[in-house]
């Protein structure tokens, strides 16, 4: 799950599916369906679960799944199904925002390194190496320890910790694109360096990063959930999958549904995002070759 590994698969000698322009596979359809369902849950949770995710009813605590409560009720009698649905927005938002922060930061670092001259390249590469030396999750933990827990902090923390991986890829891509024929042509034609960077280098260098980002969203959701699980992410009573998992764990022997359903949601989301990312990756590679 570490960033270098992802980079390796993307640019190493991974398998190439020989299905240029092929129709959607069953796996892709399922993944897409899950992601669409999640998007719906995130955008209009009231449509899927009209209840209030924070409404307590202590007398109805620890009820097993039933028609009335398809995922059961938690220790305070809150409806687990409603909480899982309403947690989607929170989890998805953290995943997307964190990836956006990571890629944004990486774009700056990577571009500076690739085109900013030797001194800047040296500086950004060293910063990157230092950040790489710390495992991503640890970096996020350090950040939260300094700034304090909360949704915003968690998002920034996860974004920060994924940035080094993206930055390294962007830098190497820019370096490769810079040596390509069309860039040389642009230079010969007398275009300014900013024009060349903006019009030729970045669009060509960054496209594959967006494919990686699809993979990254799944990872970011898992990380954000891990942080909430450790009590460092969202604060109670917010419905967030990792936090729900953590709150339900003490009762695992009496109420399995408290952990199973948010756990399944995390697995389904991360797996679908990753599966989509991978197929997107192999499709774009097909088109490029």
């Amino acid at each position, binding site marked *: 799950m570490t960033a270098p590994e992802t980079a390796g698969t993307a640019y190493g000698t991974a398998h190439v599916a020989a299905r240029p322009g092929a129709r959607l596979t069953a796996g892709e359809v399922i993944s897409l369906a899950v992601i669409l369902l999640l998007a719906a849950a995130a955008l209009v949770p009231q449509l899927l679960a009209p209840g209030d995710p924070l*409404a307590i009813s*202590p007398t109805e605590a620890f009820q097993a799944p039933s028609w009335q409560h398809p995922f059961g009720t938690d220790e*305070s009698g809150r409806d687990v199904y409603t909480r899982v649905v309403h947690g989607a927005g929170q989890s998805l938002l953290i995943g997307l925002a964190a990836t956006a922060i990571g890629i944004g930061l990486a774009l700056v670092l990577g571009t500076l390194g690739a085109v900013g001259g030797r001194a800047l390249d040296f500086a950004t590469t060293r910063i990157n190496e230092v950040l790489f030396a710390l495992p991503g999750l640890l970096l996020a933990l350090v950040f939260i320890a300094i700034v304090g827990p909360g949704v915003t902090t968690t998002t920034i923390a996860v974004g920060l910790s994924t940035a080094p991986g993206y930055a390294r890829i962007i830098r190497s891509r820019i370096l490769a694109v810079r040596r390509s024929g069309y860039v040389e042509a642009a230079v010969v034609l007398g275009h300014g360096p900013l024009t060349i960077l903006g019009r030729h280098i970045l669009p060509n260098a960054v496209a594959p990063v967006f494919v990686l980002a699809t993979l990254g969203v799944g990872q970011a959701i898992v990380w954000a959930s891990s942080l909430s699980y450790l009590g460092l992410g969202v*604060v109670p009573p917010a419905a967030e999958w990792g936090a729900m998992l953590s709150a339900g764990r003490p*009762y695992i*022997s009496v109420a399995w549904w408290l952990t199973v359903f948010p756990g399944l949601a995390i697995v389904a989301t991360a797996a679908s995002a990753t599966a989509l990312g991978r197929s997107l990756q192999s499709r774009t590679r097909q088109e490029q070759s």
Partner: protein
Amino acid sequence: MRRAPRTLTVIGGSALTLSLLAGCAAAAPTSEEPVAGGTLIYATGDAEPSCLDPHVGGNYPQALLATQYIESLVSKNADGDILPWLAESWKESDDGLSWEFTLRDDVSFTDGTPLTADAVAANIAHLKDPQTASSTGYLAVGKIESMTSVDEHTLRIDLSAPDSALLDSFSMPWVGIQSPTALERGQDVNCESPVGTGPFIVEEWTRQQGVRLVRNEDYNSWPGDAAHEGPAWLEAIDWRFIPDAATRYAALQSGEVDVIDNPQPNSLAAATEDGPITAIAAPRPGASNRIELNAGKAPFDDERVREAFIRAAEVNDGIEGLFFGTVARSYSVLSSVEAESLSTPEYFDVDLDAANALLDAAGWTQRDADGYRVKDGQRLVLEFPVSTNQSVPAEQSLFEQIQATTKQAGFQVILEPLDLSSWYGALAAHEYNLVSAPYTKVGPDVLRILYHSDSTVPAPSGYFANLAQLKDPKLDALLTQASETTDATLRAELYEEAQDIVLSGYHVLPLYDQQNHYLHGEDVEGMRALPTVSTPTFFDAWLAR
């Protein structure tokens, strides 16, 4: 030691044969002879202390451990009577200002230093020394003004005012007696390896993991209610820190550990039904589990807002559902084991309409888009730092329910789960409106520690016990008078009046009794909780395996 189980089988076998021969239908004998030897593994869910010397700071995790290696001047039996322990006898002067304690003359600390009057004086001086940064012990010996060694084993203690709680205070582990030679080594060393007279000795403390305690072979100072004489049966105790309740319980179920504390209510409910795991319930003396409302700052400086909060907070259903019937709702600031406890359910009727009316009257008339009340552009926000080391998950869920029910009246409760040191930090900085802090002290004098205005001033450790920030001269006078009187009836009346001031002023939302629960496996015998502050003692414990 290896041979012990076989011996046991022989004894058990012959007993069985005998009962068969006698034609007796009784069950197999359970009162077997204790077996010496073996290592008991204890897994605690309380926080790992930052210092093993209970004088420093003075919290419950320290008391749990210290009970194994440090002993007190007096103890208590199950009926609450004071028993001699390291002190053989004592007498109080008629004016209550002077006490003379006669110590046992045959006891030595485990480093060889003899127990003398000077040693006890050095311990009290250590508690009072600001450098020690004591809190619990410091407050408990607050009235001791001077000490004189009358002879080698007689200590005279002079007080600034009579102290009806002195013997109770001396029974607590936080006022335990340590080797003066060991204390002189300095705090860093003494925190690592404190030296007492107890049945076990601290051998090694591996941080984040556990403490190894080995048997004191020369032990001779068991309290009067002990079940045997001579050194402890167990050869050693492996004391492990396993903060996670589910993991701790799983370790007990699998036999990896022998005893656990702080079980989840659902595990506790299951354990009492099942065979192999036995529960020991030991109610803690002192205060009940309660939420203090900080009257020292807005918005709780207004009694109407405090009452509105208490009227809006619904806790009964939560306690019933979350604790699986293992605890009962409390309407008192004192633990139910304290005879002076005053229970006033009438102050705690939940009434949302009344809460709304009170908030309107207090000027919190507007509500914002989220339904929270607003006054002069300020939201009705209540900060609630929660110590995740001290509040079990069920209690944290109860706080979430209080958050949800008080929201209906327009309160925004912000729960902040914190580790112990950040939590102490938040309290020291007065960054709280609500707080739930356990406080254990033997006897009703805990009321003076918790609600006398003197306790708003931090002890040397930085902790102040009066978290409700109650500063009421009338209450102060009652508590002072109660702690100075020896007339039990008058004392009870004074404490009742004092509790009524605290409760009727809506300074506290009592939740449930403070209870210690221990679960142990089927081969642990003879374990009990000391009646003083309900910490476990393993002096009489042995392993039937």
